[in-house]
């Protein structure tokens, strides 16, 4: 089903929401992505991914207290839902399985050619 697949960037955002618990909101997630992956990410891209994840039911959110540095605006804090956690686990499992199925020789060859 189209709606429940996890994109690469979506998975990243979902993971980081988990990592940052309970302080995951748009800006802090972007910071963390940049720190972890050294990728250049626009704030809008993060928000876009968050909104998609929420639509798919992997995330839920609530509005926090207003703070001074945000010009008196509240921030939206995200937490992973049960189905979000399931999706992450499924992805993780799938990868691990696949990784383990790679023959030793292929990995060696990979290593050799890599050097």
């Amino acid at each position, binding site marked *: 089903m189209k709606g429940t697949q996890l994109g690469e960037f979506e998975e990243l955002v979902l993971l980081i929401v988990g990592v940052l618990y309970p302080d995951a*909101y*748009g*800006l802090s997630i972007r910071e963390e992505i940049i720190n972890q992956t050294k990728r250049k990410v*626009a*704030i*809008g*891209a993060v*928000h*876009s991914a968050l*909104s*998609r994840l929420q639509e798919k039911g992997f995330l839920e959110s609530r*509005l926090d207290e207003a*703070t001074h*540095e*945000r*010009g008196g*605006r*509240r*921030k*939206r804090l995200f937490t992973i839902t049960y189905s979000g956690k399931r999706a992450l686990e499924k992805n993780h499992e799938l990868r691990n399985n696949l990784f383990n199925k790679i023959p030793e020789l292929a990995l060696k060859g990979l290593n050799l050619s890599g050097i």
Partner: protein
Amino acid sequence: MADQSEIAPPKLADRLLGWFCKDELLEEIKGDLHEFYGMERTEKSAWKANWSYWYHMLHFLRPFALKNKTQKQTSIAMYRSYIKTGFRNLKRQKLASFINVFGLATTIAISLVVYVLIDRQFSLDAFHADADQIFAVQSRIDWNGTEETWGRTPLQLGPSLKAEIPQVEEMTRVTRKLATVRFEDNVFNEVLTYADPSYLSIFSFPLIQGQAESLKGKKNIILSKASAEKYFPADDPIGKDLKILIDGKAFLFSVTGVADGFPETASFTFDFLLPFENLKEMYNIDLQGWKNIKTQSVFTFVKLDQVSSNQQVSPRLASYRDVVNDINPDWQIRQFGLYPLPSLARNGQYVREPYASGSTPEILIMFAIISLLLLASACFNYVNISVSMAQKRLSEIAIRKVVGGQRKQLITQFLTENFVLCFVATILGALVGIYAFLPGINVLFSGSGYTINIFQDPAIPGFLIILFVALSLISGAYPAFYISAFKPVAILKGKQNLAGKNRLGKVFLTMQFFLTFVAIVSGLLFTDLNEFQEEQDWGYQASDLLVVPVEDPAQYQALKLFATQSPGIINTAGSGSQIGRSFVESAIKITDEKYTVRTFNISPDYLDVMNVRVIEGRDFDENLSSDQNKSLIVNKAFLNQISDSENPFDQPVDIEGETFNIVGVTENFHFDDFFSPITPAIFRLVPEERYNYISMRTTPGGLNDTEALVKAEWTKQFPDSPYAGFFQEEVFDNFFNSTGSLKAVMNFVAMVAIILSAMGLFGLVSLFIIKKLKEYSIRKVLGANGTHIVKLVSKQFIILMSIAMLVAAPLSYMIFDTLFAQVFPGSMDTVGISPFLLTTLILLAVIFVTISSHIIQVLRMNPVKNLRLE
């Protein structure tokens, strides 16, 4: 709190975000962006943080954050439907659409051409790099109490300015002189430009071959692309030696550069560019002189370090003026002035001996007024026709209103339809203008070479877009507001008719016919004048006269000898300058009053050969020694304007220190063109060395045969010199061509005006008839005959047209009488009233045809049909 306002992110970006972003997301997104901005400001400069704020803000232009634009989408669909109905209406009402599109497109094309002509005047010489820092130094002279600007300055002024005024970065002196240029068999008379080496660094004339610095080498010469192709069609010109012949002396110059083709917007260029210092040995000119600007002078250009330096440099020119005035007590200069390069050519005609000049503004202003009037005329037609056509669409309007269309929407609909029509007209107009009218102008005014590259000059599409929007709004506003105000109930009940008496329309129409009248009269007048000028007495006999420019007495004598042996040549005479071709001006004094007069240096039999008629006194006498340097013959204008006409022969005339007596007076003769009034001119005798022309009177009709013989003789005897003979009757050809072109343009304008006003009349009459259709039908049913109906339909239009013509005839007579009195005195007397009568007839015919087509329609209609439909 001040702290917070300091780090406020760009307001515009915020507002933009609020405009497109979903309201429910706005708070968190804005909050994140603001917090982010605060962090950025602590590490980065303000503009970098602002920039990154904008960057991130724009990254929210993603589907998830955008407001639901359902409303916007329907309105786009609306516009699409408006445009579709617009095109359908264009197709359905073929005649009306044709009239509108044709009228608008023609006038748009005309306006485009006029715009290009005017724009050219304002972009002349602007292509030079730093054009606004380049100034020409010109002299303002006290000339019998009035101030005149002269293009030239003393020779030493430029170098002194460069040496003594720090703001003057560069300076070049320029002058142009005629010489013969020869390379092997290619011999031509050419205009050579002498300039200081910085000429090529001040002006942006890039070279395609060679180095600009080579102009510093004294015997180097740089050619234009055209000259290079003329002299070296097959070879590489670089390194070749050109021979330059001046008064029989030869100078060798080595070609070291070739300039690229010059831009069309250059008001001045060069064919041959030579180092200035050569003037000293070639013409014996003192390059360090402060002599008055009359005898030894030059054009001076300076490039300042910045535009505003003009303010500091101008006052300092006064001290140089004092130096010049001390040396030349007779020639007082009021002031030297700096004249900016971009406007130099445009103002050239107010300057005596300008270096650069553009075309006359009067003609351009006239064209601009004409094109505006034509545009107004086309707009008026559109208004008229679209209101009349709206009658057919009344039920559409009513239905639209009934199903909930608001007035605003109807206005938008009509304006959109109008945009469609104007868009079609603009595209057509641009095509016609670029591919038909502009080439036409180029053919008419030969050598003007106007081209449009719509992709290179952003001003042209800009002009078209502005014209398009302005026309759409001006022509569309009235119908849109007028039609959309109708009450649907009234329409559906059949009560709504196109209300009012349409006074505005009638006023417009009267004005339109008035203007058309003026346009037709001007076309006819120019035609008449052109014919009249061709029949004009030139003041001498120009036919059967062959004139050959000569370079030295040897050539003159050889031709004279040849002429005596040729049966085809009756007699010959020599002259320093030739009537109609060239002249010199000399400053004279009569009873201490100074004047400048045209001077013709001639041989004793010149007047006889040219057939210039002596009306008082006597012709020069070869045998009188006093005639050689003491006698003058003047023209009638001299007598009328300068001399004391009671006894002109007793009044001594002082020419540069020598005293002369007037011995004869000639009939006035034309030496410039027929537009310029004849100014005072004098003839004086000079020795043979100073003849530049030999004029040969041939037997009637033998001109071509004689020329062939003379040319053959010339090439045999003088292979070093170009043969440049011409027929005297051709000297005004340029002028005839240009008045002929003006005639063609005016006739074309008159034709467009006739068509436009006929269309306007057509539209108004059909509007009128549609309104009265029921009335006519009832009248017909009750037994009205044809004449009665004709009277009814045409009466008020005939009255209107009569008013227009009664006002237009005397008024246009007055306009052209005063206009032509300036440029061509006495012409209106010769033309008479026939153009005005003819114009009246033409207009009456147009009105008759236009109205009668409608009348026939009314007469033929079946009244029952009209009445039954209601």
